[in-house]
């Protein structure tokens, strides 16, 4: 069974919520990401979302954009992401890993070739920001045949028709984007999140996780109470940026910093 499904089943049995941190591959340096991934898991991450750097990340706010730029500055690529996850799997066979990125690097490899490499690396799912259901047909089918989950976004502005379309195609979980705009923006409207998540639940049995705008334990908890889990990105990435700006290079320093942030959220989710 796919690791994502497995993980949600376990969480359900335990009555716990999924904590899904996001970091960008190669940010700020190639040797940082692997130790950071392990540290995230040790401190309570259930699923890891690994951002694949792209030259034109149009859906990202300034914080994650800059992370992409830092990673690209030393040439991080989709191939590196595949290699990295393979290394991660040498010592972790159970934590699901999702690649989050943009279509063009995947298309450059070719869907089929990418899927072969991703399976071999031990990747469980992908979230391709700029492949909405209308454009995802072929890729979705190929991912499905390979047993990989295709994760889709839903937004507060998604029409009913689109929510149904996404519910039909999606695998893994539904990623509900809690606000309009780019990553890292604005404040969370809990009432609106509840309405939307409740509605999505009427359309699908997949878990619904919420991302965008989750800053700390309190906001993570507030959102998790309404859903099956939270995705946390910009807070972690901006912490890494802060350290990088200070000239930190030790992978351990980065791991420690994200560990404490994630541990706080884990604690808020569980207690």
């Amino acid at each position, binding site marked *: 069974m796919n690791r994502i499904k497995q993980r949600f089943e376990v969480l359900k049995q335990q009555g716990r919520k999924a904590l899904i941190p996001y970091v960008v591959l190669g940010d700020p340096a190639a040797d940082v990401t692997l130790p950071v991934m392990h540290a995230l898991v040790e401190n309570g991450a259930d699923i890891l979302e690994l951002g694949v750097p792209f030259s034109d990340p149009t859906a990202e706010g300034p914080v994650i954009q800059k992370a992409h*730029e830092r990673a690209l500055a030393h040439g991080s690529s989709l191939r590196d992401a595949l290699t990295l996850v393979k290394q991660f799997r040498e010592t972790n066979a159970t934590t699901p890993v999702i690649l989050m990125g943009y279509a063009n690097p995947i298309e450059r490899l070719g869907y089929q070739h990418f899927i072969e490499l991703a399976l071999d690396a031990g990747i469980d799912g992908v979230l391709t920001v700029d492949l909405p259901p209308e454009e995802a047909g072929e890729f979705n089918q190929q991912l499905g045949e390979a047993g990989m989950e295709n994760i889709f*976004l839903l937004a507060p502005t998604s029409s009913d028709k689109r929510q149904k379309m996404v519910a039909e195609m999606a695998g893994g979980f539904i990623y509900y984007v809690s606000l309009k705009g780019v990553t890292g923006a604005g404040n969370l409207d809990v009432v609106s999140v509840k309405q939307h998540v409740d509605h999505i639940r009427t359309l699908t049995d997949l878990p619904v996780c919420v991302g965008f705008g989750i800053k700390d334990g309190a906001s993570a908890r507030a959102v998790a109470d309404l859903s099956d889990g939270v995705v946390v990105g910009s807070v972690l990435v901006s912490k890494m940026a802060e350290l990088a700006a200070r000239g930190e290079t030790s992978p351990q320093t980065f791991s420690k910093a994200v560990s404490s942030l994630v541990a706080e959220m884990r604690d808020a989710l569980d207690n």
Partner: protein
Amino acid sequence: MNKKASIDFNQMPDAHGHFGPYGGRFVSETLIYALDELESIYRSLKDDPEFQAQFDYDLAHYVGRPSPLYFAERWTRETGGAKLFLKREDLNHTGAHKINNTIGQALLAKHTGKQRVIAETGAGQHGVATATVAARLGLECHVFMGEEDIQRQSLNVYRMKLLGATVVPVTSGSRTLKDAMNEALRDWVTNVDDTFYIIGTCAGPHPYPELVRNFQSVIGREARQQSLAQTGKLPDALVACVGGGSNAIGLFHPFLADESVAMYGVEAGGFGLGTGKHAAPLNDGIPGVLHGNRTYLMEDENGQIIETHSISAGLDYPGVGPEHSWLKDIGRVKYVAIDDDEAMDAFRHLTRIEGIMPALESSHAIAYAEKLARQMDPDQTIVVNLSGRGDKDILTVAEIDGITL
């Protein structure tokens, strides 16, 4: 049988914005709603006689259309070969073809009731055209412009400010048009409730390539009538520069079904196609996904979009409108490249022998048309789209001449 003859060019794109394998809507879910809204407004107004009448009225009385089709007699004589006609988009209000499209999109914006418009700009011509229509309609206007372009197009930056627009410098990526478009998309998704995004070329997610083409097609419709009136026949060839491709598709589209009319889209060859430092994805790129559509792109082996180079800011873009990608593949239009030096020579030449100073973008079309004319007969005609005037480029040219103004 001829395959091309059976294509109904007016039926493109399909319902999802596809031109063959190109185009479409490759955007984050968060943007879909805005695009759906735009599409439904456009569909409801597209064939509305009142909307069309308003558009035509503005083009006539505000832009100054029809733009002349001018027989460049001396240029023709000195070149030797086919007769060279210039479609004078440089004579439009604000100095380029860009205003045709901004008039159209501003009318759409007005129907939505949104009080704020945004735009991306490279050369600044589209920014100026957007700031202009915003001033006229009393709309708040933010124009995103790469820092590098702000440097090389400072005259247009100041024009936009005089028109009341806010010019937002873009410092990410290569700091040119592509990054300005990224920023505009980000702004739009954040402020979609009160903001209308006026895209400046026939690229971006569906329905932009279609609606920009339709607004710009006035160029080709006029050129068709004018050619028939002045020469008694259709032109033998059309030539236009291609950045995103809006002036080119505007000229080409009404002629696509006329098999006798050859078409040439001229991309920016920069330092030369062989150097890799250019902006000619149709000549030297591969299909990929950027800015909401699938099209030919300049990218590296990892699928990262690479920095382009052209002396003209308006052509300095790593992608191209998806319809051009399709027209290339089906062989209807031939895409060629002209490098920086050839474009500069054409700029100087046309200025000296016709008293017409072309924009550096348009100078690419001028340079290619001259080459083409020499291979054609004197009884044949070429229509060249003079997409804009060169006033905005004076500082760039002076700098090349080593002169500080």
